[in-house]
Structure formats: C-alpha cells, structure tokens
C-alpha cells in the first residue's frame, strides 16, 4: 500500500472570478505518477452551488475527479486526503488553516506532498 | 485431555500435517464442523479442546500468594458484560469449578458475578438497559450464582449527586473537550476496571475473572502500546495481572481462545447471550483508537489468520519491569486513574524528545518557580478539580495532577489538546471520586522523595505551554 512509485507535490492556484476558485496545484513526494507525471497545474474549481464558496473539500474532489490519473485510493480517503499526505495552503500547514473547511481564495497555492515513500 | 494444552503452535503444525480435508483433526473419524485457524474439529472435539485450554488456565494458574492456604475457599468474582466472551466464561467456570467438581480439584470458594451497567453510554438508555439487565439476571440465576450490578457513573457518586450521573457527564465532557473520543473511551475502561475491583474488594474476592478473548487481547495489546502503556502492558494483557493491582488479581482464562471460538461454543452449547453485539457493529469508518485497532486486527486476521493469536501469545511473553513488581511496597507510586505503577522519569523523557518552549532552560526554571504560587491553578486540572462540589478546592493539589498519572493516563487526559484551537487550553479535568481520593492521599504523603521537584517540573511545563 505504498505510494508505489508516487509521491511529489500537486498544487493549485485559485483565480478567475471570485466565486470559482482557481487554485494552482502542485504534487510532490513521488505522487506525480498518480497524476501522469503532472507536477504543477492551474485548476478552476467550482463549488457545489454555482457562485457559492469553494472549500478545500471541493478542491480535493476536483483533483481526484479531474487531475488524478490512477489509484484514487492512494490519494483520497473519504472526502479528505489519505493520512500521510501533507497539504499546504500558501506554504502553510492546512491543519492550522481549517483543513476541509478552508475557503479557497483566488490565487491560493495548494501543495500536496506525500510522505509515504522510502527515504 | 492434559495434552491438548501446551505449545499451541507446535501442536497445530503437527495437526496440519496429518490433516484430511473435511475430517476432524483430533478424532480423525468425525466430520469437521468447526474451524479454528484452518484446523477442522467435530463438535465434541471442539468443545473438548476449547474447555481444555480454559480449564488449564483455571487450574494451573498459581493462586495469589497469601490465599494459597485457603485453597478451595478463596472467593472469586466473575465480570459479566453479557457479551459472548464473558457468557462463555460464565458457562465454563460454572461447569469446571462448580460445586460438583470433586473436593480435591476445587480451588475456588464462592463464585459470584458482577455486571457493570454501561447504559449511560447508550443513546436509548432506558430501553436497552432494562432488557439487558433482565436477561443477565436470568442467565446468572440459571447457574445459581449471585449477581451484583454496579452502574458506571457510581464512581462519581457524592452526597449531592448520589448516582454520580452529573459528575460522570461532566467528566466525560472534560475528557472529550480536552482530548477526543478515544480518551473518553479510555477513561470509561479505567473506571470499569476500578468498579470491578471495588466490588471484588467489598465481597472479599481476591480473584477477578474477565472474559478477554485472544482477539480482544491482541486488540488491547496494540491499543495500549499506542497509548504509551508499554510499561504496564504485562499487567493489562497477560494471562493474569499478577501483582499489578494492589488488592485483586485479574485472571483472563479465555485469552487463548479467539472470538470466533466463542461464537462457535455458544452455538454448540445453545447458550443464551444477553447482549447482542451484532447490532452494535458499525459499518462506518472507525474514529477512535480502539475502533481503528479493532478493525486493523480483525482485517489482518482475515488475510493472515494467525495474527490475533500471535499477538496475544507475544504479549504473554512480556516481562514486568523489576521495580514495578515491588507492589507490596506501599511507597510505590501508583497512577490515580488506572492504579498501576507509574514508570519513573517518563515526564522527563517526554520533555527531552518533545521540546515545548523556546527560552533557555535556566530562564524557564526561574520563571517557573517564581510564578508557581500565582499560577498553581492553571494546569490541566484547575482548582475546581474533582466532580465533588462538597469539598473546597485545593489549588496545590490540582497542580500536582500530572505527576499522579501514569504516562498513558496523562496522554489520555491531555491528548491532542491543540486540536481545537478555540477550546480553552485549561478546560478543567474532572475526576472520578476514587481518583480524587487517591490524589488527596498522595498529596498528603508529600514527603515522597522528589515530589516537590516533580510539581515544579510540571509547573514549568505549564508555564511554557501558555
């Protein structure tokens, strides 16, 4: 159940009009392989209601549905990321930013780092 | 019969080699209808091998030292939750140690049964409680044994709050806001054990039998390791608690039998089980350390069928630290919550590997001492400690709380404080009445070497923590 051959940073920046987050997402720690080699991308994330706020849970769902190319179970667990994947929002640990409830702002940079690989 | 016991592993290997599919591995004539770790048994052989394991435990375990001369008279208390394991235990104990067993083989005197009423934890408290109580009474009556029932919150009873419910609820809240659901579960386990021992003491029983299965033992081994209780692990999950508790010895006669064997035994003997555990089975993701550990062991046991037995057997091979064995020594420091010996130096250990403050050590020490009088009440247990409104609070007492706790109970009491930043850091911890008593006693004995120093160390840590 390792990240197999995966594990760097996926990040995203939220931009565009205020009501849709455009996040720049980076993947690292070997996780690139889950994303078909993708390391940095810009994503426009829509909340559940058009014009509604976008939270981290929506970003994760978006990443899973649109960016991930294989083994979603190695990235997500329920609606959050698998234990062992670190999430940074603008270079700050998401654990102090409210985790899933964090409201994504335009231009936010979100980084996913896997810790689950050899060292 | 006697040779059914012994080295399970080697025995099983032998059986495996001679196995014929579908035929009982023991009598090798009957059709197998019960499988234990891939070995098939017919019904009589299954009952025989299982009771053999349990009987060996009951008859070979040395009696506690000072009651050896009262062999055949020593009183035994059996903890009966109403669930499958303790149901099997009750049946076996009744059959193999009861009055009809010949005088020479008898080791125990009167055996009585105790049930801890945990209905306060249930959502539909009254509904489940009365049927369960009724069914338990019926089962115990059918063996002609005496049943006592003690309610979980009674550990908190005071003159204002006779059944202890208010105290219990307050205490639970203080645990769940300071820590988490896991801490709360841990507290409930500690209170239960305390109540069981309390009843044993009241009845003059020196042995407490519990129905821990190999599966449960394996879960608990991992759980207690996870909670930092490696030091007291042999007391908690060994075949007996040996000298862990000052008064009562806990025996775990079923710890070599898997949970699956219990169900099989119940089916074969057509036993009535008061507590239907199936309905409690929760399909959702576990959210507590216990739930997580349980699903891990159960899940692993499916792929690697030896896991639970291996862990349980390994736990039986652990040694208690020599200094913890001096339990006859009254000066040994005991945790006020779990009543087991406290490992020396564990706070210092924690401080070394988890630094909590930035200023230099010397600065801290000075500051810590200087402010200690003023800030005495600001630690985890505030001045309003204890759920007992009938006692004036004692600030000095509460500041010594952490030293009175073992590592595991301290972790549970303060675990994950930082999780919810908005919760005040110093939500007062409330204590079961017995723990408050023990604490008062310890504080009275303040002459214990190093106590002052330990209080200072704690104040220091608290200072840094703010």
């Amino acid at each position, binding site marked *: 159940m390792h990240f197999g051959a995966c594990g760097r940073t996926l990040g995203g920046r939220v931009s565009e009009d205020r009501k849709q987050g455009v996040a720049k997402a980076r993947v690292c720690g070997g996780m690139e392989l889950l994303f078909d080699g993708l390391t940095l991308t810009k994503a426009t994330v829509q909340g559940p209601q058009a014009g509604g706020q976008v939270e981290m849970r929506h970003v994760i769902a978006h990443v899973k549905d649109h960016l991930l190319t294989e083994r979603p179970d190695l990235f997500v667990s329920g609606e959050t990321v698998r234990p062992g994947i670190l999430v940074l929002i603008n270079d700050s640990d998401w654990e102090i930013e409210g985790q899933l409830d964090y409201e994504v702002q335009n231009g936010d940079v979100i980084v996913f780092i896997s810790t689950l690989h050899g060292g | 019969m006697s040779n059914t016991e012994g080295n399970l592993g080697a025995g099983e290997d032998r059986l495996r080699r001679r196995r014929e599919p579908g035929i009982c591995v023991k009598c090798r004539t009957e059709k197998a209808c019960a499988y234990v770790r891939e070995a098939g048994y017919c019904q009589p052989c299954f009952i025989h091998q299982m009771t053999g394991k349990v009987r060996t435990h009951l008859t070979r375990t040395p009696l506690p030292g000072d009651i050896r001369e009262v062999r055949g008279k020593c009183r035994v208390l059996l903890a009966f939750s109403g669930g499958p394991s303790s149901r099997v235990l009750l049946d076996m104990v009744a059959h193999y140690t009861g009055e009809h067993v010949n005088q020479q083989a008898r080791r125990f005197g009167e055996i009585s049964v105790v049930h801890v009423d945990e209905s306060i934890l249930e959502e539909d408290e009254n509904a489940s409680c009365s049927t369960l109580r009724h069914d338990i009474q019926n089962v115990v009556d059918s063996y002609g044994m005496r049943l006592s029932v003690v309610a979980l919150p009674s550990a908190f009873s005071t003159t204002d709050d006779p059944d202890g419910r208010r105290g219990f609820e307050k205490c639970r809240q203080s645990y769940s806001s300071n820590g988490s659901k896991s801490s709360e579960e841990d507290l409930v386990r500690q209170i239960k054990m305390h109540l069981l021992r309390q009843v044993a003491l009241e009845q003059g029983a020196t042995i407490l039998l519990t129905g821990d299965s190999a599966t449960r033992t394996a879960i608990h081994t991992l759980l207690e390791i996870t909670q930092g209780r490696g030091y007291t692990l042999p007391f908690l999950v060994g075949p007996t608690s040996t000298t862990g508790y000052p008064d009562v010895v806990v025996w775990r006669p079923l710890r070599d039998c898997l949970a699956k064997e219990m169900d099989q035994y119940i089916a074969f003997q057509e036993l009535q089980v008061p507590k239907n555990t199936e309905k409690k089975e929760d399909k959702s993701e576990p959210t507590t350390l216990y739930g997580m550990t349980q699903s891990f062991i159960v899940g692993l046991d499916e792929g690697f069928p030896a896991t639970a037995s291996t*862990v349980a057997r*390994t736990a039986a091979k652990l040694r208690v630290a020599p200094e913890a064995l001096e339990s006859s020594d009254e000066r040994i420091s005991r945790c006020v919550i779990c009543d087991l010996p406290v490992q020396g130096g564990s706070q210092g250990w924690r401080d070394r590997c988890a630094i909590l403050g930035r200023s230099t050590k010397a600065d801290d020490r000075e500051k810590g001492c200087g402010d200690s009088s003023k800030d005495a009440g600001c630690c985890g247990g505030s001045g309003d400690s204890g759920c007992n409104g009938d006692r004036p609070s004692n600030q000095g007492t509460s500041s010594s709380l952490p030293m009175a706790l073992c590592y595991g109970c301290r972790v549970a009491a303060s675990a994950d404080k930082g999780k919810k930043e908005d919760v005040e850091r110093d939500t007062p911890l409330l204590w079961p009445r017995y723990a408050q008593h023990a604490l008062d006693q310890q504080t009275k004995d303040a002459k214990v070497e190093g106590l002052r120093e330990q209080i200072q160390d704690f104040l220091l840590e608290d200072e840094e923590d703010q």
Partner: protein
Amino acid sequence: MPPRICALCKEARAVMKRPKTGQIVCRACFFWVLEEEVHQTIVSHGLFHPGERVAIAASGGKDSTVLAHMMKTLNERHNYGLELSLLSVDEGISGYRDDSLETVKRNQQQYDLPLKIVSYSELYGWSMDEIVKEVGRKNNCTCTFCGVFRRQALDRGAVMLDVQHIVTGHNADDVAETVLMNVLRGDVARLGRSTDISTANEGDSMVKRSKPFKYTYEKEIVMYAYFKKLDYFSTECTYSPAAYRGHARTFLKDLESIRPSAIIDIIHSGEALTIREDVKMPTLQVCDRCGYMSSGPLCKACVLLEGLNRGLPK
C-alpha cells in the same frame, strides 16, 4: 479566523502544527525546535565523541537528505567535532537508484562532504537488476535480500571510509512501525531492542549504527525539507511494495490522524517492552561466510549468492 501566533516565540505567524506536541509554530521556530530536539537526542544519548568519523547513510531520499543537512548544521553549531562523510549504496536498480544517486551527488556538492558509493555489482558481482532477472520478481524475497546486502554493503563502505559509526535516517514513524511489526509478527528476538537508538557490533560488525531521527516525525522531516527547499529524490523503489509492512504503515498513519502523539507514545511503550527471561529465544547463529546474523550455518544472503553464482535460480 484569528491570526495564529507561534506557540514558541509568541510573535510570528504560525505556519504548521507539530504532530508531536500539538503546538502551532512559525517557520523559524519550527527549524529551531526540530534541530534542537535532534541535538537533545544526540546529547542525551551520548551518540558521538569529539573527533569521531561518522558516515551518513545517504540514499537521496527525504530522510537521509534532511539528516545530512542537519548533521552538518549541528556539527558546526554545537562543535561536535565530527568528521562527516556521505556513504551510498548502489544496488543497481535502473530508473530508481541511478536517479537517486544523482541527488546524492548534488548533496555532496551542496554540503561539501566526501562521498563514497559502494555498489552491489562491485561487492557481490551482481546488481539487483541482474538478481531480479535471475530469481524473478518475488517482492518479499527481493526486499529481504536487498536489505541484507545493503546492510553488509554499508559496513564494507564504512571500512573503506575508515569510519566506525554510521548514522541512518530512520525516523520516529519507522521506529514506531517496527515496534508494531515485531509485535504483530511475534518476533521476540527483535522486540526488546527494536527501539534502541544505536546498535553496535551486531552480527560481528565492527560498525556502530545510530538513528538521530528516532524521535523525529516523518511529517516534520518532509516539512523541513520542503521549507528549506532541500533537494531530495522521492520515487519508490521499483521492487518495493511489501504488502504486509504496508498494512502496518497505513495503520500507523491512521492512528496518527486520530491522535498525533501516537507515534511518540508507541516509541515510549516500545522502550519499556522486555521479554521474560524464561522465554525461549530463537537461537541465532552467525553466518560462517559473512558473519551476519543467521538461523543456519549460512545466512540467507550468502545462500542466495551461492545459488546465483552456481547459476541455480532459486
């Protein structure tokens, strides 16, 4: 949300939450506290003596890269007086080790430390790729043999470098996982010492091994590497996924997500676990050929080597 202030300096904005203590800390305090904890670990266990020559086992991965960085930093800051060097093993796994060794070579430049690379093909006449071609890709076997080979390779590299002490990047998560694994496997021989910070002279080896990161959380190592922008390589070995160990790791991470202090609490427990004297320990012999711990006259690695050399695929 109110501004989150660092629990250590009480000034700067916090950027992360420490799993071990639950405190939130700013970037500067995080660097300080992590380095200080490692320093305390080194000092309180008396890991080194002045003038000692110490090799850092470097794989190019996160743990060993942070270890190299930190050993160099602490050695200078606290005047340990150590002569540090990097020691790498080239197992000969293309697409994995060749790339990670490039990282190690860059680290050598960045930290200005001597580097020694010992390769399986040089030591044993076989690279892992060749071995796998010969014996097939049975994950467990591959990893077991590779592990034994690596241990010996590090020892031999240490001798070539003339050092008696190797530090490895094993972190708190690794140590906690080992405690759980030994309990799950019922490995009484290893259980008692699974949490030792140093192992010396084991299996006739003259080289001492230590884990300065024994109490350092994996999360913090990764964060440290990220914030410091350290150059590390993070692809899993092509032959790696050992299912059973993976289960224990997942379990540990799940526990950590419920109670972050669990990892350090498991280590605390592990340090107290002792096997009773009357328990029969599996008798361990020493391999006739290489001197490594073995359950028979020859250790598994030597048996495999013999098989390989005879051209008898196992």
